[in-house]
């Protein structure tokens, strides 16, 4: 019994069925590979072009492993913003992972603390989309199928991201500043932002937060950023409630 528990999920090589799930995950991930690679490459370039040394950029990609939070932090680091603000901004941009985690954890609650920590830490947007598409309706939770499928998506995802991010870091360091490649970081953030804005409350949130952020630049301590987030959230929630009221009879 003890032996069986120890050999659990990662204690030994996967058996044939588990390899099958792993493979299914990998095959599902393949179409997303190009996007992951391009994204990682741009993020890598952006980090060195915003003035990070290659070693700090390498540490950042390996430890943080979150493109949007990394890109968000760059203008803040460049302007020497206080660390708490960098933390807060990174946290807010990562909030989507809290929502992903809330949906995913019922599938993995049977695992040990350490395994849940590792699985959670390497969760990506991609695995959330692919996993929920396949298993959201499934009655059975907490089976080894879920774990191996999940690994089949996130492990190649991690390697793809890190390889191309490192490529971007060392390639970016060689490219002349005249190309203004740091601007690609802004565009990458824009490309993360645009698909999120899918309805009217979110459009209003975008406009209100943008306006506050523009005028708020005149305030010290990047207070504009904090006010913009508060204003944007309030505006979004208010418009959503107004919409619901109008829909209700």
């Amino acid at each position, binding site marked *: 019994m003890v032996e069986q528990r120890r050999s659990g999920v990662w204690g030994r090589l996967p058996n044939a069925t588990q390899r099958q799930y792993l493979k299914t995950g990998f095959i599902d991930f393949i179409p997303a590979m190009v996007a992951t690679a391009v994204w990682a490459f741009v993020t890598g370039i952006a980090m060195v072009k915003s003035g990070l040394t290659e070693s700090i950029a390498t540490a950042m990609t390996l430890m943080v492993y979150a493109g949007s939070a990394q890109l968000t*932090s760059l203008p803040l680091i460049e302007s020497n913003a206080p660390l708490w603000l960098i933390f807060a901004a990174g*946290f807010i941009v990562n909030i*989507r992972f809290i*929502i992903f985690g*809330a949906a995913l*954890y019922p599938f993995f609650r049977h695992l040990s603390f350490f395994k849940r920590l590792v699985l959670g830490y390497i969760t990506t947007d991609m695995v959330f989309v692919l996993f929920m598409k396949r298993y959201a309706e499934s009655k059975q939770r907490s089976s080894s199928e879920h774990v191996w499928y999940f690994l089949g998506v996130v492990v190649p995802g991690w390697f793809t991201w890190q390889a191309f991010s490192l490529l971007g870091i060392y390639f970016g360091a060689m490219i002349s500043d005249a190309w203004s490649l740091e601007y690609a970081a802004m565009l990458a*953030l*824009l490309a993360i932002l645009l698909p999120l804005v899918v309805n009217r409350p979110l459009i209003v949130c975008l406009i209100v937060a943008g306006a506050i952020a523009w005028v708020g630049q005149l305030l010290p301590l990047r207070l504009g950023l904090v006010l*913009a987030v508060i204003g944007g959230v309030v505006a979004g929630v208010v418009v959503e409630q107004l919409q619901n009221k109008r829909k209700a009879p």
Partner: protein
Amino acid sequence: MSEYWQYDWYLLGAVVLLALCSVITRAGYFLFGDHIPLPDSVRRALRYAPVAALIAIIIPELLPWAQGETPVIGIEIVAAAAAVLVYVRTRSTLMVIVSGMLVLWLLQAIFS
């Protein structure tokens, strides 16, 4: 010399804090899901925060406005506007980056 030291610690601090962000937001529910309820109202409100934070980071980069000066409208915002239009037409996030860079380079060539 001491300034360099401080700057390195600052960068290292930023990396460690951001790594902490990743662990808390991603693994938080995996680890303590049974103990953290996430009410629907909170979940809905949380949808707006990332959008607000992202635009609040982007705007000062595209439309800088320093204290005691007039607001600047430069080629950065024009290129970004073009990229947004391209996104609306193509729905491709990759095209946002490609078209934005191309327009920026074009404008740089014209105005420099």
